[in-house]
């Protein structure tokens, strides 16, 4: 009894203190820290910086909102797209008890390495860009969630779509990270189901410069399509060197090359390249226009890139949850697990048992006149232009 009355007295005191302070013009909000981890340096840093800016945008907008209960501070860490650095960055964010939750990782190779760390420290995270299925499906950790889709959906669509266009034979070049290997695996499986044939598979390291030997071999095999499972930097190299060697197969990419940096890198050679990505293009998302407008208003140095909207959505989901549950990791984790039918700028977010958002929407892209264009809107779909080797 005594304790209850003490609590009551405390609560009473607190209420008075609160009302007293809120009657002032400046209402001091509690500070809450949230984290962001992504590649800010290295070859794919464009995507990381776009994601960072987008997450930062979510925090800024929330801090401007007079209705927000807390004042948020964004803790940013660079994972350099390297698993070991990622583990350190994750430890740093997760070990800081003031950080309530975080939006984490663009690189699959890093995300899969850090899930254990988040679990160990009990930090709820929402993955904003990595697509390897095992990040959510390879464990039972309640801390890990993901707003973007996985590469399984991507490759199902890709294999079927490409077969429907009439292509028969493929050569695969993939980087040997989990990202590239995963794409190789899921694409090969799905292609077999759809009756396509893979003539050869080449694993290459993620920093390889010269692909002429591999591509000359591919030229010998003369496949209809070269499937490339990897990220922007080596994608650009492979495309440029195909041209050097006179390889005229179609270049087909994955979500890893859907970036403005790829178009800039490939230049004219980008025309007619196809790639697949989960979700819709930013401008076509339910809240895409709003997002792009706000993003433009903050005058960031770099564009949000393909996954910026996901980073924004992930961070917003975290902030919403904290607003509702208070800055407590366990409560936030439980609330995130139960996320169902939540509106966001990337569409509805619903997490399954593994914390995976169940959007199955995959968008097909083709580069037309120096822009990633949705296939259905392109002149390639209308038959006005033709892809390489299209019958």
């Amino acid at each position, binding site marked *: 009894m005594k304790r209850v009355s003490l609590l009551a007295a405390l609560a009473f005191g607190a209420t008075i203190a609160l009302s007293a302070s809120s009657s002032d013009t400046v209402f001091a909000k509690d500070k809450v820290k949230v984290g962001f981890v992504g590649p800010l340096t290295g070859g794919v840093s464009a995507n990381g910086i776009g994601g960072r800016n987008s997450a930062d945008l979510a925090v800024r907008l929330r801090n401007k909102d007079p209705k927000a209960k807390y004042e948020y501070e964004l803790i940013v860490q660079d994972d350099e797209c390297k698993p070991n650095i990622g*583990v350190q960055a994750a430890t740093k964010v997760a070990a800081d008890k003031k950080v309530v939750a975080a939006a984490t990782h663009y690189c699959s190779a890093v995300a899969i*390495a850090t899930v254990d760390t988040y679990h160990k420290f009990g930090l709820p995270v929402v993955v904003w860009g990595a697509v390897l299925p095992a990040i959510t499906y390879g464990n039972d950790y309640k801390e890990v969630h993901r707003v973007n889709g996985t590469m399984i959906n991507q490759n199902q669509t890709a294999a079927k779509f490409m077969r429907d266009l009439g292509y028969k034979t493929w050569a695969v070049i993939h980087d040997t990270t*989990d990202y590239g290997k995963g794409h190789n695996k899921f694409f090969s499986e799905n292609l077999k189901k759809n009756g396509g044939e893979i003539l050869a598979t080449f694993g290459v390291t993620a920093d390889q410069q010269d692909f002429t030997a591999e591509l000359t071999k591919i030229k010998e095999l003369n496949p209809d399509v070269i499937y490339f499972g990897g990220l922007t930097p080596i994608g650009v190299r492979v495309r440029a060197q195909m041209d050097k060697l006179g390889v005229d197969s179609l270049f087909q990419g994955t979500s890893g090359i859907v970036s403005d940096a790829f178009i800039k890198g490939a230049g004219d050679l980008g025309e007619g390249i196809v790639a697949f990505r989960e979700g819709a293009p930013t401008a076509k998302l339910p809240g895409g226009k709003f997002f792009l407008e706000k993003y433009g208003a903050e005058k960031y140095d770099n564009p949000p890139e393909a996954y910026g909207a996901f980073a924004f959505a992930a961070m917003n989901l975290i902030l919403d949850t904290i607003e509702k549950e208070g800055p407590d990791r366990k409560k936030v984790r439980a609330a995130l697990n139960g996320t169902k039918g939540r509106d966001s700028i990337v569409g509805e977010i619903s997490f399954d048992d593994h914390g995976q958002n169940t959007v199955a929407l995959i968008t097909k892209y083709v580069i037309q006149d120096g822009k990633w264009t949705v296939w259905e809107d392109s002149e390639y779909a209308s038959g006005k232009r033709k892809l390489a080797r299209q019958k």
Partner: protein
Amino acid sequence: MNSGEKQTPATLWPALAGTALTIVYVILLLKVESQTEVIGLLVVGALAILATSWSGHLARAGQALTHHESILHLLVIFGALVIIGFFREDHFTLLLLTTVMLYVLATLGLNLQFGYAGVLNFAGASFFGIGGYTAAVLGAHTPVPDLLIILAGGVMAALIGSILLLPVLRTRGHYAAVVTIAFALLFKVFLEVNDILGGPQGLQVPGMEMFGWKFNNNIEIGALELSFYVNYLIVILLVLIAAFALVRRLERSWVGLNLDALRLDETAATCFGLNIVRWKVTAFLLGNFLIGIAGALSGMVIGFVAPTSFTFADSLILVSIVLLGGIGNVWGLVLATAIVVIIPEKLQAIQEYRFLLYAAMVMLMLLFRPEGLLPRPVRHYFPGWRPK
């Protein structure tokens, strides 16, 4: 050194005060978060070193400590324990401390190789990696006890390093450098393309477990909860002390004398009947053994090994620590490692610029203090003998 003229051993008080100040300084540096405070502290530290070296206090304290080396050792161990104790709950700072200590351990090995024997090794990170991967494979697939796994990491690094023995022994100078550089590049590519060892993804390393005590659990003593990193830090500290004692003993013994002789002039050393091959092999293998042990421990602490941790650039960082510290001086290693690991981590404001500034700093250092931070002192030939 003019103060060497003094007959009476220097008093210990300035050294003790200096140690206490250093401990407080390190704690402060690790503790502060705001960038202005970090920069302020760094400036204060630099000024303090300049001021004390100008006034001669630094030299006197240093001399007092070299006279009473066992006291110096105790002070350092005490200091390490105080710092660990202070940050007992702070996971990240403790992780940083383990990194520092493991780098010291690895650079002790490198120091043995080219500080004493003059054998170049640009594949330090590769041997570090071999230790880590050994721990990952043995820890996950065999019931080998963890203490043995740590040793196995060292043994594997020495064994694989012995493949390079023939070219390393036959070549010299820059030609020898290329052997280890080629190995470092080869090793990383090999790990990346090799599926059995996890490819570029790397492998998980199970945490350490000793006598039923799981190292990955936080320590709870009554109401006191310590970070699980404290477990590792204690073990690493013990290993480090053992390795340190070993390297110091070697340096002081006739083995060290032989190594010095062959580093300074191989031809002359051969003329005096020294077996060059034997000593080079010893230094190379023993060095790799220490690096491998550090790698195995590091794998267990981080819980993860991946090829990107063991690149040529990482080997270069290890080499630069040895040079920065002052080739052949074990205390220099400790100082240089602390600088290389802690400062970039604390200077988050310069996040993207940290490598640039670090490299520029080392360049300035080499231009203006080419012998390193703490050059190796002149050898004392007899116990108790002092240069007069």
